């Protein structure tokens, strides 16, 4: 068994202390209760405050934060995700020349929460609210790669085939997800629609938690080179946009 991380133990103790206290607690009370130096307690409380688990009132006293109450439900509201990423989705569409979508997981599918048209001013329809298959889209593969529970469920269910290239074998999908985690981005070439391809990368929030995926999609001949490999420049654009959104959401650079 690897060694315990002391500061996490202390943080957990603080949360228990705040939860069991009828009123709010000051820094001195917390430090005394846990027999910690005031500076140590302050550092931990500031970190807990940063992730929303603890809140401070106007008088400087601490209580449990609203984020704790939502732990069981979705961590980031989808409309908030759109609002926070809109400024970086536009440049991605402009630079790549392709349509951009942002997705999150909803009941075993990819929910499209934001869509930017391909910048050629042709007639296109907004498909915010549409659902895409997790295993047959680049967005979905990213989301699966970083969500063990949903991935397990997906690997145990029947993987529907959309084209002859769709990954319908669990072992193929599992290998693809491993590759996504290694590369930090995902691709999908004619696995959902003949002639279409997509690239996607993870959007991360505090602590690196993946809260969504951003990606582009378009005709295979524009997304890939003649050897059916994605253009490195497009991959770079997608990853750069994902990093920019993540930075705004508070993820540390990696």
């Amino acid at each position, binding site marked *: 068994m690897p060694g315990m991380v002391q500061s996490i133990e202390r943080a957990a103790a603080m949360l228990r202390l705040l939860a069991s206290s009828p009123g709010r607690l000051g820094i001195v009370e917390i430090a005394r209760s846990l027999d910690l130096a005031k500076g140590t307690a302050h550092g931990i409380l500031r970190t807990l405050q940063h992730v929303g688990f603890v809140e401070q009132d106007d008088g400087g006293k601490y209580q449990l934060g609203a984020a704790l109450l939502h732990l069981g439900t979705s961590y980031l509201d989808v409309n908030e995700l759109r609002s926070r990423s809109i400024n970086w989705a*536009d440049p991605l569409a402009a630079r790549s020349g392709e349509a951009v979508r942002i997705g999150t997981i909803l009941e075993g599918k990819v929910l499209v929460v934001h869509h930017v*048209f391909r910048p050629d*001013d042709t007639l*296109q329809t907004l498909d915010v609210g549409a659902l895409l298959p997790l295993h047959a889209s680049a967005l979905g593969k990213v989301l699966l790669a970083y969500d063990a529970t949903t991935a397990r469920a997906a690997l145990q269910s029947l993987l529907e085939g959309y084209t002859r290239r769709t990954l319908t074998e669990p072992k193929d999908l599992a290998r693809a997800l491993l590759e996504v985690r290694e590369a930090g981005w995902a691709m999908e070439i004619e696995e959902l629609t003949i002639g279409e391809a997509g690239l996607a990368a993870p959007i991360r929030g505090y602590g690196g938690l993946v809260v969504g995926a951003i990606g582009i999609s378009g005709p295979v001949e524009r997304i890939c080179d003649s050897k059916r490999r994605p253009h490195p420049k497009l991959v770079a654009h997608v990853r750069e946009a994902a990093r920019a959104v993540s930075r705004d959401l508070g993820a540390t650079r990696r």
Partner: protein
Amino acid sequence: MTDRYVVSIDQGTTSTRCILFDHRGQLVSVVQMEHQQHYPRPGWVEHDAMEIWRNTLRLASGVFQQARITPDQIVGLGIANQRETTVLWDRRTGIPVGHAINWQDTRTDDLVRQLADAPAAKAIEQRCGLPLATYFSGPRIRWMLDNLPGLRERAERGDVLFGTMETWLIWNLTGGPSGGIHITDVTNASRTMLMDIHTLDWHPELLAFFDIPSQILPEIRSNAEVYGRATIGFPSVRIAAALGDQQAALFGQTCFTPGEAKCTYGTGSFLLLNTGTELVRSTHGLISTVGYKIDNEPPVYSLEGSIAITGSLVQWFRDQLGLIATAPEIETLARTVDDNGGCYIVPAFSGLFAPHWRSEARGVIVGLTSYITKGHLARAVLEATGWQTREVVDAMNADSGLDLTTLKVDGGMTADNLLMQFIADVLDVPVVRPMAAETVSLGAAYAAGLATSYWSDLDALRQNWHRAAQWLPAMNPAVRAEEYENWQRAVEHTFNWIKPH
């Protein structure tokens, strides 16, 4: 070859932002700092101009750091600013005589009522193109001169300078007390009530009416020309554009042809229609204003419909009622129900702007029954923005004799799909969002880029405009008509709430 960029400062109501744009007009880097809102009394809203200036300097170093570039990679700097916010400062020390009075501030209420009774009032409105209202900066200057001890004397001696926020920033960026350039631009000047809307010069009759000494006024310049070079913050960078934020958005949306209109959805919302080189006078409660003027070219005018409270109603819902944690969650909450349940919110928090101009109106929530949930209230909050847009578009169609065929939208609220669909539904025209939600900053960058030949002409800018999203009307006409009637009845309930004293 090193990449070159244009940079813009968007000095807004709640924050100042510094954005770097590339040749495609796309964001490269954004840094932002909020500043404090001061509410010393009901109806008073103030900003600390020094805080805003300090923030601007920090943002300047921040943007260089974030983008890893040096000042010589910047071809020009453009400024877009919250309009009508008024600051007076000492020419020798650079210290403001007090807090800047914000555009939402209504302290000039009594003063404006008095002025409106003067026999010359009609001729004044005619000359400056604006209705006498607390909204504009002229009355605020007068208020400061009347109420701050000794100020009028200092102003008449020539020791005091007036500016809106672009004037304040340009003066400071170019050296402040040691040689700072004291200028404004035609769009900001057109919101003072002191400028002749035809000649684009300060007019003695207007200055006399408001009793404001001409010594304090900046020189009026076009929106796109090199004014000078920054000496601090952006060392040696050419300052090449200044526009009021809404005119900047009109420019950023490339509404260069008469008949093109945009609406920016922020704290308030502002619909501007390009009316070409002809000034159109409104008979339906809109404002005649300068759209933009490029260097020595003739000015392009616009009609403006200003709505005081749109995004700030969502903020109120978040901060004062606490029904949501973040502004975007209003959409999540609104989607928990299918309609407004018969409830309407008219946010006449400090009176109503266009097309009503009723400063005595105050907000109402009507149609409350025990059936109403917070979801219905969230719907009513979003719908208020839709209906207020509809009122302004109706006025614009009536004034211009044209029917709006498409509405170009921008601003933070365009991330709200439910709202954008509702606006398309109630206007019965397509609503289009360009591939650049930050059109205010982009407009300032475009003007600066034109003045410094980063972009060749307006056509080059037009080619940067792409449709990012579009919402098509899908509301049953009978429902639309009935809901609009309900809204209008709700609006009537706001009138005459504040009694004259």
